[in-house]
């Protein structure tokens, strides 16, 4: 079969919505019409894949790229919230309790390298915050995050994560896109490419950036990479709407309506000459969608209807200004999820342009101060968000991921006050739909220096996230530049032990 006959990056033709639904997936000729968003348009049967599994290509209606699509298999989670903490949160000061650090405090046992990422190393340091048993399980969590600690029984920790780079941007890229290099599609882009969204009046994938700005890898953390631009994360927060969303100030509502009316007439006339052309129809539909977003985005951003109790529980007032802004972003995250947005990625930290440890979790100096400052911002609002989602029953169908790019060293840097990057062991947690409660998966070694039992790569972690969303990480592929690309490259095993 000549595979080029199925290709149509342009001149895609003849499909109105009804006939699309009628024919989708039924014949090769209709398959030809589904190519819009499928890379160079190679069909599964003509492609040799590295892993041997046949790709499952989402059937994307060119008129409606965001339409909800079926997962590969049924799982409880329909939506996902990723809370991302740039800068690397110290696992040994938060969730990964290591009594040996007390014992070796101030000593330099054998096996500690002379040089790590930022330079010469110092001695082992005990946790900077006291660990206490929490909840029914009595799992040890530190006092740094007292509010999240109260929810320990609800969380599923992965303590044996390890990554491929000890530099932040590469680490962020790896966690969020599965590659240390730039230009690969993000987890959110892959997920919306596969699943579309439940509410087309809002973007399918929203990236809520920190009030201090974008994280170090910037847009790459929520970019579409080589997937079509339709699947990039839309960047807005509780206080700053997407660019060019609003009607320009110098226009009246009537002006806007006039413009839209003319566009509609011109396009209708133009479409008569190209009856049924999918690209043209898709563009017309996108204007309607944009118009609806102009209403729905300000609506979702408007927190005026939130009760005083809600605002208080998230900590909008009464803490630092940054906590207040982050708390509003947390409420926005819940509102987006309530309205059916498929993927929400919420950032707690930005690039370091404001100085070391002031804008994100990076803590090479004075970790006592810098981690405390970040924790004050992150802890209460995040805990309130999780509790709120739980109370509203949203965790039945929402997966929550709390992640960072790597951990921090069990020993200090030569300066004696900060911990350097640790790519070989770190902790993230999951909760919500499809995830086991009160679970700790894997361990790091006695110092928290390297992953020990059941080491989990970032590939494994991402494979698991896709699995929890009902997607087979080996079959969710996109042909680009010679390869069927995946979020997990050619690696990754689903961590089945943490799936409920």
């Amino acid at each position, binding site marked *: 079969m000549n595979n*080029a*006959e199925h290709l149509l*990056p342009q001149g895609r033709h003849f499909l109105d919505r009804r006939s699309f639904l009628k024919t989708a997936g039924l014949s090769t000729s209709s398959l030809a019409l589904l190519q819009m968003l499928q890379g160079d348009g190679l069909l599964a049967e003509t*492609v040799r894949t590295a892993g041997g599994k046949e790709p499952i290509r989402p059937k994307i209606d060119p008129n409606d790229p965001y339409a909800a699509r079926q997962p590969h298999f049924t799982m409880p989670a329909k939506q996902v919230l990723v809370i991302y903490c740039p800068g690397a949160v110290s696992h040994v000061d938060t969730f990964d309790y290591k009594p040996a650090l007390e014992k070796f405090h101030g000593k330099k046992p054998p096996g500690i390298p002379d040089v790590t990422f930022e330079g010469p190393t110092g001695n082992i340091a005990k946790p900077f915050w006291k660990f206490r048993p929490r909840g029914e399980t009595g799992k040890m969590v530190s006092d740094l995050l007292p509010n999240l600690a109260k929810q320990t029984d609800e969380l599923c920790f992965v303590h044996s994560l390890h990554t491929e780079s000890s530099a932040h*941007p590469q680490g962020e890229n790896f966690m969020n896109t599965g590659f240390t290099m*730039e230009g690969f599609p993000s987890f959110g882009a892959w997920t919306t490419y596969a699943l579309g969204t439940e509410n087309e009046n809002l973007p399918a994938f929203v990236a809520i950036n920190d009030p201090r700005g974008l994280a*170090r890898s910037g*847009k790459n953390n929520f*970019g579409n990479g080589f997937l079509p631009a339709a699947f990039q994360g839309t960047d807005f927060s509780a206080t700053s709407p*997407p660019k060019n969303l609003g009607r320009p100030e110098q226009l009246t509502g009537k002006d806007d309506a006039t413009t839209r009316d003319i566009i509609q007439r011109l396009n209708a006339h133009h479409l008569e000459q190209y009856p049924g052309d999918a690209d043209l129809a898709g563009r017309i539909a996108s204007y309607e969608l944009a118009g609806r977003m102009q209403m729905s985005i300000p609506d979702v951003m408007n927190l005026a209807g939130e009760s005083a109790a809600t605002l208080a529980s998230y900590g909008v007032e009464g803490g630092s200004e940054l906590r207040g802004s982050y708390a509003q972003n947390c409420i926005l995250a819940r509102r987006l999820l309530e309205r059916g947005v498929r993927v929400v990625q919420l950032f707690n930290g930005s690039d370091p342009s404001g100085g070391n440890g002031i804008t994100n979790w990076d803590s090479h100096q004075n970790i006592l101060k810098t981690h405390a400052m970040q924790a004050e911002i992150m802890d209460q609002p995040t805990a309130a968000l999780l509790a709120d989602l739980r109370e509203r029953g949203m965790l039945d169908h929402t997966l929550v991921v709390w992640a960072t790019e790597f951990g921090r060293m069990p020993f200090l840097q030569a300066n004696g006050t900060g911990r350097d990057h640790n790519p070989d062991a770190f902790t993230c947690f999951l909760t919500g739909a499809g995830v086991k409660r009160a679970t700790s998966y894997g361990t790091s070694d006695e110092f928290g220096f390297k992953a020990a039992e059941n080491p989990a790569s970032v590939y494994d972690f991402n494979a698991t996230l896709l699995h929890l969303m009902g997607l087979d990480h080996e079959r969710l592929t996109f042909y680009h530049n010679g390869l069927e690309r995946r979020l997990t490259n050619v690696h990754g095993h689903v961590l089945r032990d943490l799936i409920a």
Partner: protein
Amino acid sequence: MIQHAAPTHRSNFCSARLILLCCLATLYLQATQITEAAIDFEKDIQPILEENCWHCHGEDEQESGLRLDKRAMMLRGGDYGLPTLVPGHPEKSYLIEVVEHRDPDMAMPTDGDKLPEQQIELLRQWITDGAQWPGQMNDKIAYTAEEVPWSFQPVACPSVPDEHEQNPIDAFLLRKLRQKSLHFSKPANPATLIRRASIVLTGLPPTPEDVLSFQKSCETDADGAYITLIEQLLESPHFGERWAQHWLDVIRWAETNGSESNMYRKNAWIYRDYVIRAFNEDKPYNEFLTEQIAGDVVGHGDATGFLVSGPHVPVATVGQEPSARRQARADRMDEILQTVGASALGVTIGCARCHNHKFDPITIRDYYSLSAVFQDVEFGSRYPELDERHPRREAAQKLNKEIAKQRYRLRDAGTWQEDWAGYGEIHFPSATTNAVRITFLSRYIGLDELEIFGLHDLQDNVASSESGATVIAAPGMEVLRNELWKVNDGEYGTERWAARVPQGEKGNPWLEFQFTKPTEIDRIRLSTNRENFFDTDYLTDLKPFNFPKYRIETQTADGTWQTVAESEKNSQLNKKFSFRQDALQKLQRLIAQFNTEGPRPSFVGRFKTPGPTHVFHRGSPENPRDEVAPAAPLVLVGDLQLDSNASGQARREAFADWLTGPTNPLPARVMVNRMWHHVFGQGIVTTTGDFGFAGAKPTHPELLDWLASEFTEPTIMASAHSVRPWSVKHILRLLVTSRAFTQESKPDEEALSIDGTSSLLWRFPPRRLEAEVIRDAILVASDSLRPELGGPSYRIHNVKKRYAQWQVLDNYSEETWRRMIYQERMRRVDDCMFTAFDFPDCGQVRAKRPVSTTPLQALNLMNSPFVMSQSKLIAERSLENTDNNLPAALDRCFELLLARQPTADEKAAVQSITNPKDLFLVCRAILNSNAFTFLE
């Protein structure tokens, strides 16, 4: 519609190529001399292999692409690319390594126990004795025909089908159309045609006046008018801007590094201008490729921006661990290989970084051999080699003379210092010495590099460790940053050595350089972070170089030290002699002038002495294996007859010769296909960057080869246009004068039911315009587009802190009214306008852009300051052009934006506009309409 000479028969051109098929793909290994065999293969070895290996690596199954039942296959090895057997060398044979369980992740056999030591010893002995294998000693490894993709075969010379078509392209297409009972559509009308041809060839729409005049000419002689139009478009300086855009996409060229700091690459744009110029001049494509790979050798230093077009992580953000640095270097090499593979070869070379290519006959050895070719390339800036007549070289010559004059005035009256912005220079009377000591009359000193030159050779830094010089520092210094060797390692940038006199102690820091032989010197050049001035720009914290106070001494033959320069003395002399002040002032002015008008350091790569290259087992720089010579893939007869002693230039030159030489059919095929893709919207091979097994097969294989052949050996109308081989314009002329290109784009229900994708070209397939065309066309409509070519990019971003993100400040006002190819091209930065239109983020190779539709496009095109301000300008222009006659002005808006008169329906659509102040709403609407954003 165009008169073509009859195609000549080309068999003589082809015969030379066909011979090459015989040479293709013979990876030849010589049989070893049969020695007296202590081991009997059949008795001692075969049972071990049979019992333990053949189940997974035998006739039925070849795990990891490995067979252990054939000697030749063992010599070749499996996917990891290591030879399983190296006769005579058990220590180099991967078989021994895996049965010895040296790497727990690669221990064989996988299931079951380790082989008994006695059996391992037998294997070792067998290999030591030459791995005797009765009956297979002369077996050679050669790729079978099925293992080599169609595109690696020599270009065939198909004869043009006899379809009575003037343009051979149409003949090939028509034959296929007829087979499907299809035919070409009727010719497009002149207005459609001129818009289509103008946009495809120059990226700009025609003006209403262009359209009128073309329509008029068509009334008398349509063919002639069209040919004239095409020649005008091909000669337009905007042609190069359009086609450069496509090239820059493929190699993901951008003006920032990417990664955390994402710093601006200073003067990187000179490469963009080189590409534009090359397309405008119709530089033969083989020369174009050669110059980009070895431009430093042939006076086109600006062309090597190609080599460093990909992203890289600067050393400051890689971290201090040596293994991380080795990995970063390997990543940079990989970016270079991806660039070369995707653009010139259409082969996904990067797939062979960790193991043999899964689909194509590219081995891991090929990958590292290819990386050896580029081993002298490093990401950074240099003074590009320019043609003698280049204005910057001429300016430099002139200014150098002026500078020499002023230095001559100063030379007789002591020493002096010059501030070159990025570095300082101290000049003193020429002295021949074995050693120099520089004492800094301060407590602290930080230097990224200190260089020493003699008057007679301003290129040869005699202080560099490479030249054999050694350096020591004052004892007892407190080192604050890095080790001392950083001051003469030839690397500029943040990796500076910094030290101070410990608190409470007296003294000054000093450095002493020892040469290997008495050396004549007369100047010292020093800097703290020259990278700031060489490599980057637009950072808030670019600090100028500050001269410390100093004393310089040279060692005389008897071992004593003699002062040759002192900063304090300079100051005294300057006070004493007014002519010195005058000369120094003039000198600084000339230096400033030189820095602007002379050759400037530009981010087009820098070169270093290449060392030997090793295969990195499983892609890890921590696991170097066999040394490899610089070479191109063996399957394409890529032996370059070089070894690790070859200079960097020799390596790249030899590679360029091979790349464009007769054994390599890929560059011509890939380039003609790319041209086809940009003309018709879809390549003959739809995977424009992958011509391997994982890519698509050509829809019209014979047509593709005919074009490739016509590209390298032009025949059609070649003499009329004095066409040289590898002429891009020649091929484009053939494409756009075809019936396929000049036909209508309207749908036809019956044809659609047969060929829904229009890939057989029964019509010209309509498509959405790219980001650049949309922006440029809006500026054309408002008559705001500034026509000048080249130069620094227009800025839309802020001046940022080193580790901050770029922010868009202004993407719409007058300073930005240039073609979008001149917009600062920042990696992974949303330009708040056209990123939504699939404008690439320049992170990964983009052989072609996806076309997607998103509501963000609609919002940007409705509400952005750019569209609002341009809509008003277009409305004003319409009114001005029509003496404020509103109905005429309404028509004029359509003419300006769509390059045609409005239809009756379109006129009706804007009837509601009755006030001239609302005219801009019409413009806003038209530029949002499908008619504007589609190429019909």
